[in-house]
């Protein structure tokens, strides 16, 4: 069958992707500019036997998502900056207890209540370090409506495969912009479901490192009778403060992500083969940067785009590789300097870096990025 062609917002494409991935539970709280995700799922989920609930606050919706996921349901919540702040407590719980789920943050201008209807990219560091304690996280970030559909499916796949929360970052432009999208009858990529235990129920250990870096997660209600706690825990999930067991847990938690970077790190490059000037941009800013690359090429400047799709873990190797090739690297982002510091760290002084930073609630224009590229050529 031919795919259905639609004109959708990014937020709607996120809903389509989540349903294609097998979403069965959504808990949320109204907040601009992500509310359409909740609204559409309130309509759609009960039709596919799933469940939608509007909770009393953002904290509760993150909690409900974790509770639902422990019964085996693919679960998601969606929010924006102020709500993302409130979700951090139970997002940390999910990282530490290794409960798969997807958290969407459609970024708006901050800090605080900020600019509710304007785009920003000012939560990218919060996505990494918003919750307390050492923890790894996966965050991916689309630049178009069709990509939002595909990356929402990938977010669920990563969550299930690595038994972790995954943050799907968007910005107000991607969330609200309408683009043509082809929705296939079947998901365009294989759907991954979490590994289930293979041991007898009485022998099941929910955090058993001998089962690999991602121990299988049983469902509540199937007789495994296991314990989940936000306290530091041993293989059985029981609280411990033993330094050796603490180290084993934290090491595995990090290893399961950092030993799989080949799978997790996604990016796109345009015209980088012979590029002398690189432009690093992501999300909606990458659309302006793509235009800037074309304009620069028209003027004879060998420019190219580096667009990280996986924001966290940060693609250190990608930057290090191009840092040797480039004469200069322009970093454009809708904040006052967040990922640019990661770029500088990864580049290790191998290339001069020009910052194009803007946090006034407006999209960075292609001309602004072009001008920076021409200045450093």
């Amino acid at each position, binding site marked *: 069958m031919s795919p259905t062609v639609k004109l959708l917002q990014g937020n709607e494409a996120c809903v389509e992707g989540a349903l294609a991935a097998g979403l069965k539970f959504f808990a949320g709280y109204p907040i601009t500019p992500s509310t359409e995700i909740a609204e559409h799922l309130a309509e759609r989920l*009960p039709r596919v036997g799933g469940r939608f609930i509007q909770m009393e606050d953002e904290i509760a919706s993150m*909690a409900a998502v974790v509770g639902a996921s422990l019964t085996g349901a693919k679960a998601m919540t969606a929010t924006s900056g102020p709500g993302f702040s409130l979700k951090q407590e139970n997002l940390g719980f999910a990282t530490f207890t290794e409960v798969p789920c997807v958290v969407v943050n459609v970024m708006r201008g901050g800090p605080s209540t900020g600019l509710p209807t304007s785009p920003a990219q000012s939560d990218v560091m919060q996505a990494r370090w918003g919750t307390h304690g050492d923890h790894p996280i996966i965050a991916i970030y689309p630049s178009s409506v069709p990509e939002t559909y595909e990356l929402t499916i990938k977010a669920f796949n990563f969550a299930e495969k690595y038994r972790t929360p995954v943050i799907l970052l968007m910005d107000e432009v991607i969330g609200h912009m309408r683009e043509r999208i082809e929705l296939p009858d079947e998901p365009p990529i294989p759907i991954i479901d979490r590994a289930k235990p293979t041991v007898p129920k009485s022998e099941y250990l929910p955090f058993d490192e001998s089962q690999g870096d991602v121990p299988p997660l049983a469902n509540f209600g199937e007789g495994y009778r296991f314990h989940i706690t936000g306290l530091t825990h041993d293989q059985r999930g029981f609280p411990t403060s033993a330094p050796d067991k603490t180290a084993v847990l934290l090491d595995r938690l990090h290893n399961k992500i950092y030993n799989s970077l080949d799978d997790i790190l996604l990016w796109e490059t345009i015209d980088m083969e012979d590029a002398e000037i690189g432009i690093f941009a992501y999300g909606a800013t990458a659309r302006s940067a793509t235009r800037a690359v074309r304009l620069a090429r028209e003027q004879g400047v060998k420019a190219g785009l580096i667009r990280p799709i996986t924001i966290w873990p940060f693609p250190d190797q990608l930057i290090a590789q191009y840092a040797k090739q480039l004469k200069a690297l322009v970093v454009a982002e809708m904040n006052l300097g967040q990922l640019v510091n990661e770029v500088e760290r990864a580049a290790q002084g191998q290339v001069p870096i020009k910052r194009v930073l803007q946090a006034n609630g407006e999209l960075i224009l292609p001309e602004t990025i072009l001008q920076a590229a021409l200045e450093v050529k």
Partner: protein
Amino acid sequence: MLAEKYLRDAMMPHIWCPGCGHGIIMQAVIKAIDKAGLDQDKTVIVSGIGCSSRASGYMNFDTLHTTHGRALAFATGVKMANPELNVIVLTGDGDALAIGGNHFIHACRRNIDITTIIFNNSIYGMTSGQYSPMTPHGHLATTAPHGNMDRNFDVCELAKAAGATYVARSTAYHAAGMADLIGKALANKGFSVVEAISQCPTYYGRRNKQGSAIDMLNWQKEHAVNVAAAARLKPEQLEGKFVIGELHSSSAPEFTEQYDQLVARLQGRE
């Protein structure tokens, strides 16, 4: 033996202080579960943070020890995603009513089929004795060294007003009666609250000169008035006392049942 069937031997010894009432309340919960014949594999115990909330770890079920105050929100996700499960929340007075107060009133309002036992020891015990929303006015705590200026909640009135369909109160002294009330709470198809008054001789009793654990249990015995007896007393005769027993029972649509009906209707199965 109930202990062998329902407790996790590997988690013993427990962390509760000598004389603490929480073990008595946990026992009442276990007796009620056993008497109700709940399927051990289909029952999930959810708790928050604090002394009371450690009970989940001791109990041999699927158990979820969550973040401070959030047990009801996690439990709502569990119950909503799989309504076949029996979901029981064990929480404390600080956990349920201070940091978790918003979740508490909305769980009541929603009338979701969850049974909540509030272990009320009138103090934050885990952090060694700060005043809670259930610390009586004028009483002492490490953070109320000059006397508590706050007024304490009547959590049963709060639960009833917010829409809970079963509300009861008991004490560690009245352990057998407590198990019966928890049994009725489990049987209620809707949101049920049992306030279980506990004693904390270590951090509340000592500072407030309430004597030993036995003295505190005797205080519970002497100050509790059964709801039937209370109905025959004048308000002045109830001064300084508190009422125990079944305080409220009503019927209202249960949340997950309504949602199941919605799914059935939308899928044309109705």
